[in-house]
């Protein structure tokens, strides 16, 4: 399996505090990976660096077969290169309908003039219908997304990410605030998504990570503490000490 994203020697500090310290991370083309770690381990900063929100002080972030360096690109450019990101809080456009939200996310030309002078075609509408079906929101297409429940908003956001057709999907605490049934649905969505792309799930909840059944990377104080299967890392003494054994 070829490498899709390679992060090496990345460090970043805020006002002297080293949020990320010489971090190395790799993920393959079609891989599901969970990233866990205690609060302040640098999980969100790690995502910020990949998506271009934060520029690292040093280190390389290489992406794709052409080894494109992501460190100098804008957020929008990185997103167009195929990196999708889901935030912890569901961020959908509440004033717009579910269909409009999905339409916004569809992988199409993002140029303002192209968007102004084109209108969605039949294929786009069909795709929106399929996506709604996939995340279980077919019955809600015409509703304003602000009216959806918390879990439905999370799914809508996942649907929007799928619409972007990213090659790398970064998901921040997808199961936060969900009911057990909703968690199960979310697990299925993520496992399914990882069959066609790379998915990185940042998660706090060990039970949820266990259900994902994938390789786990443990972050601590801005660098990788351990990596391997969930059973492997939960038996690692360092991991137990800093994270699990509290």
């Amino acid at each position, binding site marked *: 399996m070829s490498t899709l994203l390679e992060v090496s020697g990345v460090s970043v500090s805020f006002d002297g505090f080293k949020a990320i310290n010489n971090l190395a991370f790799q993920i393959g083309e079609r891989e599901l990976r969970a990233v866990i770690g205690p609060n302040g381990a640098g999980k969100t900063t790690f995502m910020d660096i990949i998506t271009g929100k934060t520029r690292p002080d040093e280190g390389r972030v290489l992406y794709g077969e052409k080894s494109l360096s992501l460190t100098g690109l804008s957020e929008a450019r990185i997103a167009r290169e195929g990196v999708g990101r889901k935030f912890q809080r569901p*961020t959908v456009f509440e004033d717009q309908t579910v269909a409009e939200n999905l339409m916004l*996310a569809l992988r199409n030309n993002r140029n303002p003039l192209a968007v102004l002078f084109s209108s969605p075609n039949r294929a786009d*509408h069909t795709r929106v219908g399929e996506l709604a079906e996939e995340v279980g929101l*077919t019955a809600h*297409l015409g509703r304003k997304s602000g009216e959806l429940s918390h879990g439905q908003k999370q799914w809508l956001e996942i649907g929007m990410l799928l619409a972007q057709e990213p090659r790398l999907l970064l998901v921040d605490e997808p199961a936060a605030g969900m009911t057990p049934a909703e968690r199960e649905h979310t697990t299925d969505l993520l496992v399914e998504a990882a069959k066609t792309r790379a998915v990185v799930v940042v998660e706090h909840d060990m039970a949820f990570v266990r259900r994902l059944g994938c390789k786990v990377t443990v972050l601590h104080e801005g660098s990788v503490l351990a990596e391997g299967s969930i059973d492997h890392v939960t038996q690692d003494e360092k991991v137990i000490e800093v994270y699990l054994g509290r």
Partner: protein
Amino acid sequence: MTDAALTMPRRAFIQRHPAVLVFLACLALFTLAVTLLAEGTGTGVISTSFVKTLGKTLCLCLVALAMDLVWGYCGILSLGHMAFFGLGGYAIGMWLMYARTEIIVAESLAQAPLPPTPDEIRDGIATQIFGVVGASEFPPIWALAHSLPLQLAAVVLVPGLLALVFGWLAFRSRVTGVYLSILTQAMTLALALYLFQNDSGLRGNNGLSGLQNLPGLGDVPQSTVSMWFFWASAVALGAGFLLCTWIVSGKFGSVIRAIRDDETRVRFLGYPVEAYKLVIFTVTAVIAGIAGALYYPQAGIINPAEIAPIASIYLAVWVAIGGRGRLYGAVIGAAFVSLLSTWFTGGQAPDIPLGFYTIKWVDWWTVLLGFSFVGVTLFAPKGIGGLFDWIADKRSPDRHGADLGPDQGALREQEAER
């Protein structure tokens, strides 16, 4: 797919946007009524000066549309759109003044024993126009003033280019919110202060005057000219409404509303947010310039005070009172508040004697307007446009200040069904 109807709006543009038809019908009826009642074309119930007031109001409605697009839809509280409006006025005013002075100078020199040379005529025009600021040479910016097509191009290009350059600098450095408003206000103030100078080349605080007289049409009475401009303003407003509806209705509109609500999220969807803002800022500046070019020939005079930041703040107040985020709201707000303002400040509103003090509306109108603005912002954020929702029973839930959903801002299902 069962929800094809929801996701596939394949109907005609007008059908999808009934507001357009209603708006255009109202505008046509209004125009017809004024035409039938005006001094120049009808019974004369409406005086020429009031026709001009109504025509100017239509231009203000057009610039309010632009403001609604940039603020209500894209979330950029620009305090510079009346500056673009003024620049449009200056651009057309230069030609009007030049061409009319040219005719006067040519007439007076025609009586001389020798026919005047083009240079003599040009000098004569310069002396006439710039004598008031103690100059007799044409400044470089008047180089194109002799040509109507070029000055008409300037109506579009000058505000457009200024908006493009200013917007590029401001958006690129990701200045947003109140800081962006302050920046646009600074631009407006700088422009006004520059124009106030006598050596700015645009006659300083005298501004350009006599713009109501169309060159070569001295025989046509103002009652007729006023109707021409009234009709042109009505057509421009109708076209502007169509254009704005088209812009905000499609996917582009969806993107700019998304930018207004959560700019960061739109960026992570891959949209170049700055480019979208720049397009909207520039397009609306051009609309404002065109509105200004139609307004000032009806007003007859333009001076730098018209460009001062307060004008743009008034514009924001009109849009807020009318209801931002809906195009007809902006039009209603601009028409309602500016006509009311004309009534109050024109001395027609009766004074209120309180015994110890008499409220003179000429002085107190701005206070009333200020309180209305605060009132609307606090108690009726949807503005006058919200009345239409109320009539259509499209009420938003009364939250009594409490959060309802699991997350802030979420609506409850049963409320949504109403």
